[in-house]
């Protein structure tokens, strides 16, 4: 099959191009500097071949999709013949004719691939009659909004959710023209096993799945003179926001973000990295305790809310292994709501905490009931990097002209350890910087643990610290987390610490970040974080003077009772689907008496069908059909004793018309 060994090139639009080990023709053509349009191709996902836009003409093969074709030496390929251009245009027109054309008001308007390609391919007119869809948008999730009217069924989200995250919360349903992408049983996203990571939204080419916007809530708070609004900025935000204003990925714009937020009307701007420093101390303390006292190991990190929900859904037995530490966002929120009212001289209920996050799952996390204090939620609103960019634009602020401003103290002060949290391996490295000094009792001169950096899906390392060996696993994307969790469950691995991030690459690749394609952007953002670490004065969380101060004034010491109250949490096993348990008293809610007749095969053979008809008739003759909700239902699994009928909560086996009517009458009597 693979003939890539030879050096004979393919002929691309008349010019030779060396194959160079490219796995498919599309990658090869793109590497040669020709951008073929695609909706359904992603280098990290399986080849799907559905959008048909990457079609090329190959001598002897005709029109084929380049994504699904293996390049062979001597292949003669053309990419932009008249025929191909016409076909691409028709396919785009077909999509547009069946698309909700509310482009100007669409959340994805500035980064919509359908719009971009239609423009590029010169679609100036749609020849086909418009077939508008009319489906309800799903706003049930705290993190994401799903609008099936804008879906082009490229399946990227479906494959991302199942192939990268191993969840499959959404899949195709129905067939042909009625195909939709939907959660199980067409339920809402908020009711199913979605972990809110938002990977679906970040691969979606249109506005069919987008992060849920909280911009309006924040504007309302900012414009309310009686509310003091403070912000916390997550590490990964600073190296990505610039992309929305024409800067290269990885350029840290912390100072300008502060300036912009102040211009918008935020009262104080702090840094989530401060809370990350706090997390390091708490989590490392917990870890060292478990390690030295021989308690439950491995310890899983818990700063990623996507991973936490995933563990609650699929690995309830591993929940004792999850660090009890809240994530930096929630530690910040808790600390802010406890200490800031005094410092800023405001009432607790007038303090509004906004976090700016690269992440959609953080929106869900902020709404967890565990994170509510007497003055409401610890974090009132979560804006993604994208939303912040939009707010800046809405405020008319010219980002590139801003003069950088400083973060507010004390919670704006951080060490480099708190900054590298934003990339995969960062949490582990930050913990190691603390644990090393704690375990050896000596000062760590070079804080860099480059061994734990990198982009491998599952990075496994054994480090020697003093005379202790630590076995670490650094995992990103939840399908990899599943592999490790299965090993832990089976008891065939001996890790001490396992860092899990749901997004491939860590928070820098979060679904709230500006839309980007390809892995390089993510790596540049990660590089930006490591550079920021370098330029900071301090690199170890324990050196942060404000953290030390915080322990002195409020938290006593890492792992103290007070710290546990404010900075730790508990986890609960979760059902994967809401309502998947069998509800024995399914009320219709309208006050009618429910009468269900089993029409499963067993009962059906014993005459349940006739019984159902008779019941309907009897109810009608007696004039009580408005008081009853008679319906057929599926098997009660009492087949040998059928027909089975349920009246209210009473199950009657071997039921006949007389028995059923008697029961109905007596229950109706009780009701009156």
């Amino acid at each position, binding site marked *: 099959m693979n003939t890539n060994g030879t050096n004979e090139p393919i002929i691309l639009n008349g010019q030779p191009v060396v194959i160079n080990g490219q796995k498919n023709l599309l990658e090869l053509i793109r590497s040669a500097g020709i951008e073929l349009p695609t909706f359904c191709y992603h280098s990290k996902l399986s080849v799907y071949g559905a959008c048909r836009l990457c079609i090329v003409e190959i001598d002897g093969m005709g029109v084929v999709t380049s994504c699904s074709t293996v390049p062979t030496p001597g292949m003669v390929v053309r990419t932009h013949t008249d025929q191909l251009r016409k076909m691409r245009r028709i396919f785009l027109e*077909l999509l547009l004719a069946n698309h909700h054309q509310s482009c100007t008001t669409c959340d994805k308007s500035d980064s919509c691939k359908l719009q971009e390609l239609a423009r590029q391919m010169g679609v100036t007119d749609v020849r086909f009659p418009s077939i508008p869809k009319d489906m309800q948008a799903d706003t049930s999730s705290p993190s994401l909004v799903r609008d099936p009217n804008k879906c082009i069924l490229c399946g990227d989200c479906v494959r991302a959710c199942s192939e990268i995250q191993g969840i499959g919360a959404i899949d*195709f349903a129905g067939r042909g023209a009625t195909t939709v992408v939907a959660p199980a049983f067409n339920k809402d996203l908020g009711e199913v096993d979605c972990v809110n990571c938002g990977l679906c939204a970040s691969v979606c080419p249109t506005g069919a799945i987008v992060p849920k916007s909280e911009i309006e809530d924040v504007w309302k708070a900012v414009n309310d003179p009686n509310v003091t609004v403070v912000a916390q900025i997550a590490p990964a935000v600073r190296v990505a926001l610039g992309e929305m204003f024409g800067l290269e990925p990885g350029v840290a714009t912390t100072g300008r973000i502060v300036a912009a937020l102040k211009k918008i009307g935020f009262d104080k701007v702090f840094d989530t990295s401060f809370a990350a420093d706090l997390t390091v101390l708490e989590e490392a303390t917990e870890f060292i305790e478990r390690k030295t006292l021989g308690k439950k190991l491995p310890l899983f990190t818990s700063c990623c809310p996507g991973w936490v929900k995933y563990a609650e859904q699929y690995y309830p037995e591993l929940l004792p292994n999850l660090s009890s530490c809240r994530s930096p966002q929630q530690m910040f929120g808790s600390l802010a709501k406890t200490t800031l009212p005094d410092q800023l001289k405001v009432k607790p209920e007038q303090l509004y905490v906004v976090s700016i996050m690269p992440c959609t799952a953080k929106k869900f996390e902020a709404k967890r009931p565990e994170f509510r204090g007497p003055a409401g939620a610890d974090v009132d609103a979560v804006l993604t990097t994208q939303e912040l960019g939009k707010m800046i634009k809405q405020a008319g602020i010219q980002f590139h002209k801003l003069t950088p401003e400083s973060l507010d103290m004390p919670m704006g002060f951080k060490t480099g350890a708190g900054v590298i949290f934003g990339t995969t391996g960062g949490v582990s490295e930050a913990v190691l910087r603390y644990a090393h000094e704690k375990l050896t009792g000596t000062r760590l001169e070079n804080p860099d643990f480059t061994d734990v950096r990198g982009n491998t899906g599952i990075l496994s390392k054994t480090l020697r610290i003093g005379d202790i060996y630590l076995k670490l696993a650094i995992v990103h994307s939840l399908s990899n987390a599943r592999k490790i969790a299965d090993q832990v469950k089976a008891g065939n691995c001996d890790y001490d610490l396992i860092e899990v991030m749901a997004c491939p690459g860590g928070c820098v690749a979060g679904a709230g970040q500006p839309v980007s394609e390809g892995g390089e952007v993510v790596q540049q953002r990660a590089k930006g974080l490591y550079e920021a670490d370098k330029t900071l004065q301090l690199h170890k969380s324990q050196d942060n003077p404000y953290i030390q101060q915080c322990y002195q004034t409020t938290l006593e010491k890492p792992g103290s009772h007070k710290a546990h109250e404010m900075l730790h949490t508990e986890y609960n096993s979760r059902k994967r689907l809401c309502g998947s348990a069998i509800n024995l008293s399914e009320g219709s809610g309208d006050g009618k008496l429910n009468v269900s007749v089993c029409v499963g095969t067993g009962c059906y053979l014993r005459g349940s069908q006739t019984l159902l008809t008779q019941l309907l008739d009897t109810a009608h003759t007696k004039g009580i059909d408005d008081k009853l909700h008679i319906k057929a239902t599926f098997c009660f699994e009492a087949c040998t004793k059928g027909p089975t009928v349920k009246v209210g909560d009473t199950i009657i086996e071997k039921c006949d018309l007389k028995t059923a009517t008697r029961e109905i009458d007596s229950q109706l009597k009780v009701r009156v």
Partner: protein
Amino acid sequence: MLTDMQTLELIKQGYDKAVKPIQHRIIICAGTGCVANGSLKVFAALKKEVEANGLTAVVTLEECNEGQIHLSKSGCQGFCQMGPLVTVEPEGILYVKVKAEDAAEIIKTTLIDKSKVERLLYVDPAHGQVCHTQKEIPFYAQQKRIELGDCGYIDPEDIREYIARGGYYAARRAYAKMTAQQVCEEITASGLRGRGGGGFPTGKKWALTLQQKSDKKYVVCNGDEGDPGAFMDRSLMEGNPHRVLEGIMIAGRAIEADFAYVYVRAEYPLAVERVRKAVEDARALGILGADVFGSGMAFDCEVMEGAGAFVCGEETALMASIEGQRGMPRPKPPFPAQSGLWGKPTVINNVETLACVPLIITNGPGWYRECGTQGSPGTKTFALTGHVANTGLIEVPFGSTLRKIVFDIGGGVTDTTGEIDPDAFKAVQIGGPSGGCLINEHLDYPLDFDTVKKIGAMVGSGGLVVMNNKTCMVQIAHFFMRFTQNESCGKCIPCREGTKQMLLLLEQIMEGKATAKTLDTLQTLAEAVQKGSLCGLGKTAPNPVLSTLNYFRHEYEAHIFQKRCPAGACKALAIPEISAELCKGCGFCAKKCPVGAITGERKQPHKIDADKCIRCGACAQACKFNAVAGV
């Protein structure tokens, strides 16, 4: 267990012994068509009558039985329209349209009096000639039934009868005497081409799969016959399941696979049952199992019932379905021969293709090439339906002309009342929703894979729907488009969205709402969908449109420019009219008209105002004199 070479012979001997005392065999067609017309009741009545006449009826042949009359059920005999069919052997008398009430007369006259029940014999409507046996009936006389031959004769549920007629000898030869390479070569030499639609050379497909090195390979028998208007695979699976199974075994030998799946459409419950029984019986005799015919090679088979999706006839979708996925096709390459079921090399063949295989191995490739054409050897079964006098399942050599099929075998084209009308021929839709139409000028073309493809249609699975001059070709295109649109899996843009749009454009034409631009748009779109779709279903979906546009463009143009349907079939374009001759002026129609479009004096012919009329049809329903037309 059948491990030694002699056992097939032993079974045959046993069967022959059991047949010996039998004087007459009465075969009742138990194909779906005849069963629907009551053939099972006929069977029961005949059995009763045999016994009433003091004869012994045998239903299951046993070596020790002493019976004289063997009553057996067969698979579909093809002449469904004339069913229930009853054949009396050895005389070969064929009775048609038999009812249970006829049983007594049949038994008495045929078996006791050794005569014939004249009124139940087939009379050729064209010449009035009485046909005593199957061979005399023009419908059969013009056919060459190689694949279907045994279908209407043997008892499909009796493996011994299949063996007694030479069954499983080919499989034994393939397993015990031939190498995999040799099997591939024989099939290649025969020129056998895939019957599923594409016409890919079967031997070549097998040889490609044989070349693949793998620890596991699969054979898949595609029995997901979904083309509306085709039912040859059903008939084969119901009528001669062992032949299909033997073909599957030989395919397994040829590619060195040890397992096969038979994927049967769920709409064919009887076929599922029969093939399942065939597999069980073959397994019980050791024909399937760990050591096939003492070769040391294993082979087994599982029957899987489809779940209702036309697209699963496409091989990659079918494989997805077997793997427990949504039946959505994936891009090719890689071809199933390279990476099929669970990524293993897989051969997928259609039922009819596999049914030819044992015949070729038994009789040799030279024999197979004796009929058919150079490029398309052998015979082909067609499902002949529509406006034709004799509908049913037929088999003719490749290269036969359409004229022979429609006029000689089919007995000519019928008008809307069902009467033969020599001038009514308009077109034949060949190959179902993937095919195209053949018209007058093609009547004398040889029907084979390549000729039909050149004309812009395809043999496909072999549906032939004859259409008379009252058929609107735009409606036919619309009908097929609605079918493919319904059955599109929804994966790729051209097929999912394109079929939807083509359907809309055709509707506009049928409703008189189209403009000159509509035709251009339709043609351009159809071509883009044809070239750009992911799988065979999508690529061929525009064929009915393109083909009718090609041959009946004037009909499209009449709809668009003159707002007229030449066949008078499109309701929206019909001109409502009250026949002055038939109208008695009763006024019922005017009373029923919801928009007051009908006027007229009492006892005088009424008139409809075409502009006001909404074509609801209320007037036509109200009229007792059939005077209203065009609504």
